[in-house]
């Protein structure tokens, strides 16, 4: 805190130069990069692994449109945060009233509950590789996460989580040392193909849902607001968001590539974390399972520290209840109640014997994708409100991209539902 202040002083007094620009970026960096690393949570790793192992490189082209959509959507959130100084659920409540907000909050609670369950599934699956039973690992990690956030020690642990995200590099390295047929990879991007088979549509919804998760938009906007970024500094925040979105996709690309080249080619079906871990065998040999498990557990705990808290914030803010970990329990009972409920219910469900952990992580991301269009519609209506955004409304290109994303997701979801019935 103190250091940040001093740096900022130093930077702003160093005159107009390249250093000043770079320095300012590092100070304002954060929300986008952190959000994108949380994006690669247990559900993310699982979904990308499944995409590669079940469909090979067939669906890898979808990463391009998804990346464009993610940049647009996150930029919108960051802009709304900077211009209005308010969180997304605040804005929804003030514009659309109590009724709509309550239903949306119930929807967000259920969707995010799915995500929390998936994070603890990630912990369970990862720790099983280390030989730790889920009846020990899950309750312990639930309590750890709860304690860390309530006692306010989370901020210092966050850096450790971020550093551990270097784990994703192992996919990049593996992707290079297995020497894939790059011509073929480029060919897949240039000749996108997709059938309307339910499993394929489900996977595309899952890929979108895990990359552009609804809860992340609330989280990103809240962090931008909390950071107090001013309009003049907004260009740095925008760069941060774009960088973050690109990093997510580089990681996603290599996970899918590696799984396609190793698991898909050898016909391995991913049913447990151990199967997914085999994709890292070219790099880590027999230690690949440990490497993968470490990455999975880190990603799960990282997201599990943020997701329940962020969900609780957005619900309480939307419904007008006291929030904040600096409040006492009696001052903010709903806040602590919801927060504890999400963690302990999420962890509790995973304790049910013989759950298909991989499937749970995957399906929670598909659910994300199905809920996304609803959140996007609210965002679009808000960001085109002249009174709210003043001179910072969406331009026609951003509107077009966001609306197309919304309509495509609604279309895919409806098609899938019709086919399933």
């Amino acid at each position: 805190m103190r250091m940040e202040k001093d740096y900022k002083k130093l930077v702003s007094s160093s005159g107009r130069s390249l250093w000043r620009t770079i320095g300012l970026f590092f100070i304002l960096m954060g929300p986008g990069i952190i959000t994108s690393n949380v994006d690669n949570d247990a559900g993310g790793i699982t979904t990308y692994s499944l995409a590669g192992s079940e469909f090979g490189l067939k669906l890898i082209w979808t990463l391009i449109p998804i990346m464009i959509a993610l940049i647009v959507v996150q930029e919108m959130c960051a802009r709304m945060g900077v211009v209005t100084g308010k969180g997304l659920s605040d804005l929804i409540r003030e514009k659309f009233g109590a009724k709509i907000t309550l239903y949306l909050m119930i929807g967000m609670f259920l969707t995010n509950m799915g995500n929390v369950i998936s994070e603890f599934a990630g912990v369970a699956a990862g720790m099983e590789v280390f030989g730790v039973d889920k009846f020990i690992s899950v309750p312990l990690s639930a309590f750890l996460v709860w304690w860390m956030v309530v006692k306010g020690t989370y901020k210092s642990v966050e850096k450790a989580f971020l550093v551990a995200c270097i784990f994703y590099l192992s996919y990049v390295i593996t992707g290079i040392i297995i020497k894939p047929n790059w011509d073929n990879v480029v060919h897949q991007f240039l000749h996108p193909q997709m059938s309307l088979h339910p499993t394929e549509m489900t996977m595309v919804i899952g890929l979108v849902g895990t990359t552009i998760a609804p809860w992340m938009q609330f989280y990103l906007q809240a962090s931008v607001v909390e950071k107090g970024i001013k309009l003049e500094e907004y260009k740095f925040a925008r760069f941060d968001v774009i960088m973050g979105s690109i990093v997510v996709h580089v990681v996603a690309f290599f996970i899918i590539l590696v799984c396609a080249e190793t698991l898909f080619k050898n016909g391995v079906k991913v049913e447990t974390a151990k199967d997914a871990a085999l994709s890292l065998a070219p790099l880590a040999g027999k230690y690949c399972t440990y490497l993968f498990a470490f990455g999975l557990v880190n990603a799960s705990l990282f997201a599990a520290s943020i997701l329940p808290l962020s969900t609780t914030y957005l619900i309480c803010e939307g419904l007008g209840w006291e929030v904040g970990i600096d409040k006492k329990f009696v001052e903010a009972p709903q806040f602590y109640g919801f927060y504890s409920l999400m963690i302990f219910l999420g962890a509790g469900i995973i304790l049910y014997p013989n759950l298909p952990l991989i499937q749970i992580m995957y399906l929670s991301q598909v659910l994300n994708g199905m809920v996304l269009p609803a959140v996007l519609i609210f965002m679009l209506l808000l960001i085109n409100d002249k009174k709210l955004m003043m001179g910072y409304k969406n331009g026609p290109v951003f509107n077009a991209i966001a609306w197309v994303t919304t309509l495509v997701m609604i279309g895919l979801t409806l098609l899938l539902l019709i086919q399933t019935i």
Partner: protein
Amino acid sequence: MNQRLKDFYFFSRFLNQKIYAASGSKAAKIADLIVERAEPYPRLIGFVVRAGRRDKKLFLPWEKIAFIEPQITLSEDGSLLQKLSLSEKDYILLREEVMDKQIVDTYGAKVVRVNDLHFLRMDSHLRLVHVDVGFRGLMRRVGWERGVDKALRWLFSYDLPNQFISWKYVQLLTGSDLLQLSVSQKKLSHLHPADLADIIEDLSSRERSAIFHALDTETAADAMEEIDPKIQKAIIETIPVEKASDIVEEMSPSDAADLLGDLTEEKAEKILEGMEQEKAEDLRELLEHPDETAGGLMTTAYLQLTGDVAVETAMARLRAESPELDIIDYIYVVDHEEVLQGVVSIRNLLTAQSQQLLSGLLAPRVVSVKLDENQKEVVEAFAKYGFRALPVVDAENHLRGVISFRSVLEVLAPDAG
């Protein structure tokens, strides 16, 4: 006029209700409620309605309503309604400016969100008397009030209470209300500065600077002293320099110096230039000292006198200058070179003869700290001697400032409060 009014109404009862013409045909739908901008309980003066094929927004004055119960009926033909042409200064559009927004409850000293509004009948009018911020109000808005009521009664024999805040204690944060200076500052300046600071910290940046525009300088300065440094800085950067100078001038010198020290030199200099010269000099001097030394903690708003002053005169000076002083527990006695001679506490003053000289009241040993002494040593000195303030001297024992207990508390527990 007898409009068959019930004794009370909620906003949610009116919103989106259909309005019928005298003939019984449907004439319009309520889109908003308008009250006059008056204290303490504003009167409902009409509705904004949507009517006609193109859903035009029209104004329906209260006088043109024949009945409210059992259905809202006009006393004349619906086509006679006029276009809405009210000045925002005199009226509040409740849905636009109050419903679902955050407001300050100046009685409970916190920021809350409005779930519903409660009107009472007075003669043939309705007046806005309460803001509903409770769960019951929320359920009423969603249309679940009865269901939730029944469920809770059946399960726990529990009746969900209403959580009302009297309109008297409501401070709006949105729309044009903040421009109504006289109204807003009256309500907010009743709050304790520390409570006001907490409230300001809870708001968005836009609302913060709006509030600072509306507050009088003294209240703004008192609140500013209590606000988190990071937010202090953000606020100062958004308000005009002249206003910033006025506020900083009113702040206690030690807090003001801390704030200026966090700003860029350029900005701090601009603010100092707009201030009274003497005060600016003091602050410039305080700014010289690093934050973590005794010099960085001290204030210059204390009373120093020479030893040949009588108790009577000292008391009179203390009385006259106390509004400007941070330290009123002690008077510091110096010689003509400003070398610290000793300290006289207010207790000494009260118990002494009025003609006695201050030099006769001094304790044999004076406790002080050095300018460049570390924060930690200052804290230890406070803990050891139990004084409410400690003088700060330079190497030649010249009195340079005084550290108050409050500043030490901020070092010890920066996050508390």
